[in-house]
């Protein structure tokens, strides 16, 4: 019953977190000054027209009723109708999600591919020139703002070398290759600072594990230094790295919003900034809710991975 009960508890807290988050987001948007309907129709609109639009948008309902409406709609995949475009928000978001989500995942993959080996290398060469070099690079990587790095990448690889386009998205209709190509520079820009952080975490986690008693036991069994590291150190060291990885996904998703601006990618970031300037609050509300949902979901998955990786959590002490 252990794992089932655990799953049930975690699911319950997941739903609870989502509920509280939705209340917070709704409440914040609720206190926004100004009437979206009046804003949309401009200064010279007739009061009757505004009232009609308010009814159409559901703005005449009581806040509690509107909240219920919003949440119930979202559960069914209905995010309401955009104030400005008069199209379903779910449709707009879905289109944009197909850019932002692959970008974040691409960047996450790059982060892990670079950071985990770099961290292992640095930890196993602790104090040697290789370690110092890797640590120096990560120190620099952490300090670089990703959108600035993106601009430099564009300057070098798009404008000077002309290997990549300077921006825009080829679209998934153009095929997997071209689409991924147009996401490559943005993904690299996003991944660099996160890879630097993750490499540092990987290194310190591994160094900490290497000081554990059971690593000495492993050496006393006759394992070589590197056998000890790979067979006993790595899995233990990866457990805390998982947590950081979960947090990083949140940063990547949020960071993607900024990076999309540099590369003119038609993702959630562009959508949300356009919506802010147009005071299209229902779009802002939905995108924010979606981002928060993604973060909470990923942390839930990290918790599950935790339970699988660490038997102490799986069976209880």
């Amino acid at each position, binding site marked *: 019953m252990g794992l089932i009960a655990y799953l049930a508890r975690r699911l319950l807290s997941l739903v609870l977190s989502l509920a509280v*988050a939705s209340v917070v987001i709704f409440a914040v948007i609720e206190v926004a000054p100004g009437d979206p309907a009046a804003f949309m129709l401009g200064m010279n609109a007739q009061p009757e027209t505004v009232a009609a639009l308010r009814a159409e948008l559901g703005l005449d309902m009581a806040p509690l009723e509107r909240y219920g409406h919003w949440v119930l709609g979202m559960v069914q995949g209905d995010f309401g109708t955009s104030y400005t475009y008069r199209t379903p928000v779910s449709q707009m978001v879905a289109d944009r999600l197909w850019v932002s989500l692959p970008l974040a995942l691409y960047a996450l993959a790059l982060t892990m591919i670079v950071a985990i080996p770099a961290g292992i290398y640095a930890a196993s060469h602790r104090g040697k020139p290789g370690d110092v070099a890797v640590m120096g690079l990560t120190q620099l990587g952490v300090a670089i*703002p990703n959108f600035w790095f993106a*601009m430099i990448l564009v300057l070098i690889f798009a*404008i000077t070398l002309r290997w990549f386009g300077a921006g825009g998205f080829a679209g998934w209709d153009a095929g997997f290759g071209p689409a991924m190509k147009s996401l490559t520079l943005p993904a690299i820009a996003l991944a660099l600072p996160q890879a630097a952080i993750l490499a540092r975490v990987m290194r310190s986690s591994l160094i900490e594990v290497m000081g554990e008693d059971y690593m000495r036991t492993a050496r006393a069994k006759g394992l070589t230094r590197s056998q000890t590291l790979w067979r006993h150190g790595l899995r233990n060291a990866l457990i805390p790295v998982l947590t950081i990885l979960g947090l990083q996904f*949140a940063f990547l998703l949020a*960071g993607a919003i*900024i990076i999309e601006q540099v590369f003119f990618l038609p993702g959630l970031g562009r959508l949300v900034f356009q919506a802010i300037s147009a005071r299209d*609050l229902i779009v802002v509300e939905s995108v924010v809710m979606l981002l928060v949902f993604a973060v909470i979901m990923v942390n839930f998955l990290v918790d599950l991975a935790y339970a699988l990786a660490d038997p102490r959590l799986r069976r209880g002490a």
Partner: protein
Amino acid sequence: MRLSLILGAALSALVLALAALSYLWTPGDVTAMDIANRMKPPGAAGLLGTDHFGRDMLSMIMVGARVSIAVALVAVGIGMGLGVPLGLAAAARRGGWLDELIMRGNDLIFAFPSLVIAILITAVFGPGAINAIIAIGIFNIPVFARVARGAALPLWQREFILAARVAGKSRAHISVEHILPNIANLLVVQGTIQFSLAILAEAGLSYVGLGAQPPLPSWGRMLADAQTLVAVAPHLALVPGLAIILTVLGLNLLGDGLRDLLDPRLRRVRT
């Protein structure tokens, strides 16, 4: 690694000094446009060149540092001021309802990256430096609460805390007298790290237009302005970018150096 402490302190001091100096004197006027001398490379006009309106870049960087530092300082102050007491309170009654409430609340805030908070706030109140401060500050609260709680929990198991309880001191009294001084090192180190993260976050928010508004110069917006001109005048992007990198690098090195200096494990060896 004394080197990182010295280098970090020197870089951080340099940025602070430039920001302070900007109140008294800047090489050029950051509000005066000089279209004839626009986008001059470094050296040709002023030490760091001029921007697309012909303003002196060094002056812009100096005044921009003011905004970055002010936003980061207040935001970290908010995070520390609220987060540390929350973390201490949670640790003092481990497993109690308050602990549970604080930690759940923290988890919830962690689900809102500071950019998302900034988007929400801006959507409601419009963009501005204050919103950047609040957004970054809110995100810093759970960071400090976690660090404080995590460091305080093992201390509560230590026998000198039990001795203080035997002496009849309340948990709040013990938190202030015994726990806080013993975790202060850690908080200082975390403070410098959060400070550097706040500088980065402020630059990102200004870049997308959610931070400080014109005519106040800010590093992030200098980069946003430079974006379309980067092929013509790369220094427009390089100068503010390097300013951010050196500031953040300096703070991180300072944090690392302080950690080594203040680490009680290392100090025990020395004494």
